[in-house]
């Protein structure tokens, strides 16, 4: 097996051996969807939303929250703790290149979060009759762009945090504003003009809107795709710039 696939398999195994991390990174978002869906008013059509129900609006928010949890509580801490314990230092004496190491983490993170996304879509469809994405290609592209942008931010947090404890503190600090602008407490539809403009420029705000557009059968707006790409490039570039082995 190549180093990349062997690393990916190993990292996935290690990930699955941490029940608390798995709960927050993978199970929490689907559970939240179930809890929301069990509230009767969430399942009633709202005329201002063109007949959509709140649960329809929340599904992409929950999907994007799944990615955010994975990157900010899973990925960033994992990297920071590897650095703290000298795991990265040890790897540095082997022929494996950093890009392969990070590639394996991203591959694992992508596989796990795509699985989470599929679970969320399945629960939405089967339990609460939320429609599946109308424009599947657009949905997948939007999803991958959100995931890349958030993983880049997670790696940046890991690169800047001095320890794994501080990585988790910084991760939470970043998580709450991002998830606010994704619309967890106040859906984008209910945001004022200014709030919504800010939301358009955040990775999760742009991401939620893109996922919603793709669900409705349209291609996401170029602005949102550009915002997602910009976050990926800037955060990813800074993460590479500040990456430390020890």
């Amino acid at each position, binding site marked *: 097996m190549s*180093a990349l696939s062997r690393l990916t398999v*190993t990292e996935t195994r*290690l990930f699955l051996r941490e029940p608390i991390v798995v709960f927050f990174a993978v199970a929490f978002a689907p559970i939240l969807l179930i809890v929301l869906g069990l509230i009767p008013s969430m399942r009633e059509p709202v005329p201002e939303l063109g007949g959509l129900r709140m649960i329809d609006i929340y599904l992409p928010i929950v999907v994007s929250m799944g990615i955010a949890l994975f990157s900010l509580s899973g990925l960033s801490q994992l990297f920071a703790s590897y650095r703290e314990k000298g*795991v990265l*230092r*040890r790897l540095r004496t*082997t*022929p494996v290149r950093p890009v392969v190491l990070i590639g394996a983490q991203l591959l694992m993170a992508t596989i796990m979060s795509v699985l989470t996304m599929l679970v969320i879509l399945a629960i939405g469809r089967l339990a609460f009759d939320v429609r599946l994405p109308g424009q599947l290609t657009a949905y997948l592209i939007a999803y991958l762009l959100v995931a890349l942008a958030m993983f880049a931010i997670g790696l940046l947090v890991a690169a800047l945090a001095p320890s794994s404890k501080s990585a988790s503190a910084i991760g939470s600090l970043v998580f709450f504003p991002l998830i606010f602008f994704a619309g967890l407490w106040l859906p984008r539809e209910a945001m004022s003009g200014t709030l919504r403009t800010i939301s358009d420029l955040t990775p999760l705000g742009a991401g939620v809107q893109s996922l919603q557009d793709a669900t409705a059968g349209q291609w996401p707006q170029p602005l949102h795709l550009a915002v997602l790409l910009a976050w990926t490039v800037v955060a990813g570039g800074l993460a590479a710039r500040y990456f430390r*082995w020890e």
Partner: protein
Amino acid sequence: MAIIEVDGLVKRYGGHTAVDGVSFAVEPGEIFGILGPNGAGKTTTVECIEGLRRADGGSIRVCGIDAQSGDGELRQVLGAQLQESELPDKLRVGEAMELYSSFYRDPADWRELIETLHLTGKLNAPFRKLSGGQKQRLSIALALVGNPRVAVLDEVTTGLDPQARRDAWDLIERIRDRGVTILLVTHFMEEAERLCDRLAVIDAGRLVALDTPAGLVARVDGRQRVRFRPSAPLEHAVLTALPEVSSVERAGSQLVVTGTGNLLLAVTTALAREQIVAGDLRVEQTTLDDAFVALTGRRIDATNSAGSEEI
């Protein structure tokens, strides 16, 4: 041709010069020791050789590869065992070996390595459940899994109990017998004396001596000490008159005679002439410890006693 060539290595941290112009060359098949007290610059030196740190001056070549160039080829030929590096807690022994062997072009048979290192019974044990000695053995196995030509072992027996330490020494000799050149960092005299073909003694960032263990001892001086309890009072002059004797001291009921040449014969002959019997007679040779004191002006374990090393 030397397999490791270090020439004028300098490494500074801020205003502090950790390694100050160290040069040495290691021949293929050697167990080459780097000996020195804690903080002498031993680890910094080998970390520059491993390409983990950028030197501020000098050059390093390992198998002809510039160790500072970032050439990935270095990592194929050099296996490293680091001080203070861990594996993920829940990574199992077998998984670690499988993972690390996937990094190399021509890996060793990792199952055989695990067998050699007596870890076969621990294949499914997670890293955090291993004892100190097992972790060290795994770390040696990982350093060897790439079939390196050079293995760098940094304080590999620190924190091990005496039996585990002896096992590790046997193991290191067997690794050398496989044709691997070994660079061994240590601050244990006994280890250096037992294992190393040659030693570089480093103190305060400088190379103070480079020789075989026996050569280092001989270099200090050819002095010996003879210690005994005389059966009757003895004039010191009887002994100091001998050409072999340089000094005579009284230590309790014993006399300590220091000198060179065939000291023991000279002393016992003189005593026989005086009809004095030497009780509890002992001859003490200069040790590597003495050599180290003579070279650096202090004992290697001045800060920590040999029995209770820091982990």
